[in-house]
């Protein structure tokens, strides 16, 4: 019995793991396998994986920022419009003033930061609810996009397109694979091993029970297997294609933001503010600054996403960014964040986003129309959250529930305030 518990506890992200997040990893794997079989092996071909990454990287980038906004207890409806606005400003600037592309990107990020500061000001310092501020922003910047672009499509220069449509170059000896991608895979494997070793070290230092070696082994094997598989897929695409540049940007952002939200003071303050703003304030957290930074960061990421999309589309158009906010918000909630704030992880949101992306992709490969795709995505969002709510309310045994509550059985029968009171456990979502 204890081995099962060990496995549950350690194989899928340890103690703090979130029910919906681990549930969604299973769902993700299930979706991949389902479509892999259904499409006759098309889902996991190099070409398709590469296409999926470059198609959805900008939504996933938005999901990172949105996660932080939602954890802090807000929402941002303006991301699509901000992305479109930034896109047109950058495209227009590069076209009209023949701005070199690095300056174009810098300009885009500055535009994003300024918009973010504007929205952050209203949310944090004036106290207008983010829903209202960003609803206004949604109209404002959509209008701005049309005003500046004249509702026209503006092409961007070839070099700029690399951030959205570029790939790692083919260099080095002919190995039959894309060498830089192989190298990246190797680094990732090394990183994974190091992280696992470090985690064991930390557990030991805490004098907590360290997971048995065989569990660490399985865990590592599963993860390394996944990395090696992905590496070979991405490195083995058609000549000229490999891991997309936008995918690399995404990976860097995910690593950086996961680290930030989990391991730094700033990150922890975001959770504190979302969990209980007054308590956070009385603990010395600078509430306004946290809110300001979170909103501003979202707009910077939206600007980046907008530029990546424009680069991929080779032009900025009036329809850019339409309903992106909904995709990003859905990804965050499928990934286990709570509507009321204070709960959620970057990795969870990425998994949530990938579930949506692969669902979309698989259905398209099957030739399912966009109308049905929308319906299915809507239902997936609803059921993912409903399942979790139901699960928490019931307190019944379930695979996911037991993953979430590895300690249930050990709980002392005495001071069981909330345990005797499952109605009061927070409905997260």
């Amino acid at each position, binding site marked *: *019995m204890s*081995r*099962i518990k060990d*496995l549950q506890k350690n194989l899928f992200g340890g103690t703090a793991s979130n029910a919906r997040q681990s549930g969604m990893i299973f769902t993700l794997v299930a979706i991949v*396998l389902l479509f*892999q079989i259904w*499409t006759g*092996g*098309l889902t*996991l*071909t*190099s*070409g*398709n994986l590469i*296409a999926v990454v*470059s*198609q959805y990287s900008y939504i996933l980038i938005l999901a990172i920022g949105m996660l932080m906004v939602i954890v802090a207890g807000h929402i941002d409806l303006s991301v699509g419009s901000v992305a479109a606005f930034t896109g047109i400003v950058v495209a227009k600037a590069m076209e009209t003033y023949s701005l070199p592309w690095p300056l174009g990107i810098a300009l885009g990020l500055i535009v994003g930061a300024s918009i973010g500061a504007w929205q952050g000001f209203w949310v944090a310092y004036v106290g207008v609810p983010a829903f209202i501020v960003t609803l206004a922003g949604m109209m404002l910047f959509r209008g701005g996009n*049309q005003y500046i672009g*004249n*509702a*026209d*499509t503006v*092409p961007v220069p070839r070099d700029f*397109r690399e951030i*959205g*449509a570029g790939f790692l170059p083919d260099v080095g000896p002919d190995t*039959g*694979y894309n060498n830089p991608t192989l190298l990246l895979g190797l680094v990732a494997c090394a990183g994974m091993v190091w992280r696992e070793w470090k985690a064991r070290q930390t557990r030991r230092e805490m004098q907590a029970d360290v997971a048995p070696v065989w569990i660490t082994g*399985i865990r590592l094997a599963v993860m390394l*297997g996944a990395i090696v*598989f992905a590496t*070979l*897929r991405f490195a*083995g*695409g*058609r*000549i*000229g*294609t490999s891991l997309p540049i936008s995918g690399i940007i995404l990976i860097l952002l995910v690593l950086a933001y996961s680290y930030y939200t989990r391991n730094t003071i700033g990150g922890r303050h975001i959770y504190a503010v979302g969990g209980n703003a007054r308590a956070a304030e009385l603990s010395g957290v600078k509430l306004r600054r946290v809110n300001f930074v979170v909103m501003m960061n979202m707009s910077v990421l939206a600007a980046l996403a907008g530029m990546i*999309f424009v680069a*991929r*589309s*080779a*032009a900025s*158009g*009036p*329809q*850019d960014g*339409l*309903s992106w906010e909904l995709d990003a918000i859905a990804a965050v909630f499928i990934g286990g964040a709570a509507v009321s704030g204070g709960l959620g992880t970057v990795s969870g949101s990425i998994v949530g986003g990938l579930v949506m992306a692969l669902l*979309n*992709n698989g259905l*398209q*490969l099957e*030739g399912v*129309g*966009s*109308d049905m*795709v*929308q319906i299915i995505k809507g239902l997936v969002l609803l059921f993912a959250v409903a399942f979790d709510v139901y699960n928490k309310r019931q307190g019944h045994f379930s695979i996911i529930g037991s993953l979430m509550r590895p300690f249930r059985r050990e709980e002392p029968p005495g001071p069981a305030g909330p345990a005797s009171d499952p109605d009061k456990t927070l409905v997260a979502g």
Partner: protein
Amino acid sequence: MRRIITRGIASVGAVALLTLGTACSNEREGSTGTGDSQAKGFAKDSLVGVALPSKTSENWVLAGDLFTNGLQEAGFKADVQYAGASTTVADQQSQISAMITKGAKVIVVGATDASQLVTQVAQAKQAGVTVIAYDRLITNTRDVDYYIAFDNFKVGQLQGQALVEGMKAKKPKGPWTIELFSGSPDDNNSKVFFDGAMSVLKPLMDKGDIVVGSSQTDIKQTAIQGWKAENAQQRMDSLLTSTYAGAKKLDGVLSPNDTLARAILTSVKGAGKPIPIVTGQDSEAESVKSIMAGQQYSTINKDTRKLVAETINMIKSLQKGDKPQINDTKSYNNGSKVVPAYLLPPIIVTKKNAAEAYANDPKLAPLTK
């Protein structure tokens, strides 16, 4: 219990290995991206992808059905996709990628935004897929192979001529006062229609026979974002207030399509003004009724059936490895190259020739009786 777990892990592992095994072949040696597959032709039951804009007009819905049936009759596997209503560009991009992944040999694209498909078209080219731009020319890329459409410049010319004829019939001598409308600025065709019409109207304007009441003659001023009726109606409302509030009489309105024409007529009627000569395009059922009732003056019949049929002919030639039929190799420059085009002639329809023009159309023919 432990055995179950171990077994579970083993079976998961087995499944994983299986998928790894079946899918782990390297795709590098595939196509090298020269993309001259059309010279060799391809299998008769190959997949043909058709990516169309969202289902906002009856023409696109009809075209989709015709493609599905027509391609299947011709022995191809068809994958016809519409973009979602709110996420048009992104949807179309991923749909085209999916078609490439599925190994389509030809992809027909009715673009939602003609200049935002560069990356996908390039992917298609690398994968050796032939790309046919349907109705809307894909711009800023060398990777589009053919363009098939009605002759849109001709459409504009016909609209201009119809406008002048209609006005002459009502009031034999000029000068006539008109207003100009053009289509959505993100649609490459809008400018072509407008230029065609202006090729007829401009000389008369220079002579002073035709006067634009509001003096708004630049395409930026006349454009209607998104081909949306409400935007056209708004513009017409404000023109009527600003220019025709007094005794000034409006003789004609150049409208690029039927939806806008009807919006313009609604606006004029709402203002209680006499109905001017209004042109149109697309032969929408409502407009045909309007023409028969003597309100809208003309429309253009671009028979979607013919266009789809010609597109399928083109695909058939490509399948056999033949060169498809082309009738224009110089007019359609998309910004990167001149795209070889096959143009079908449009037909102008007024109350006079409506019965004849729609004789073969099961839906419109009854309306003309």
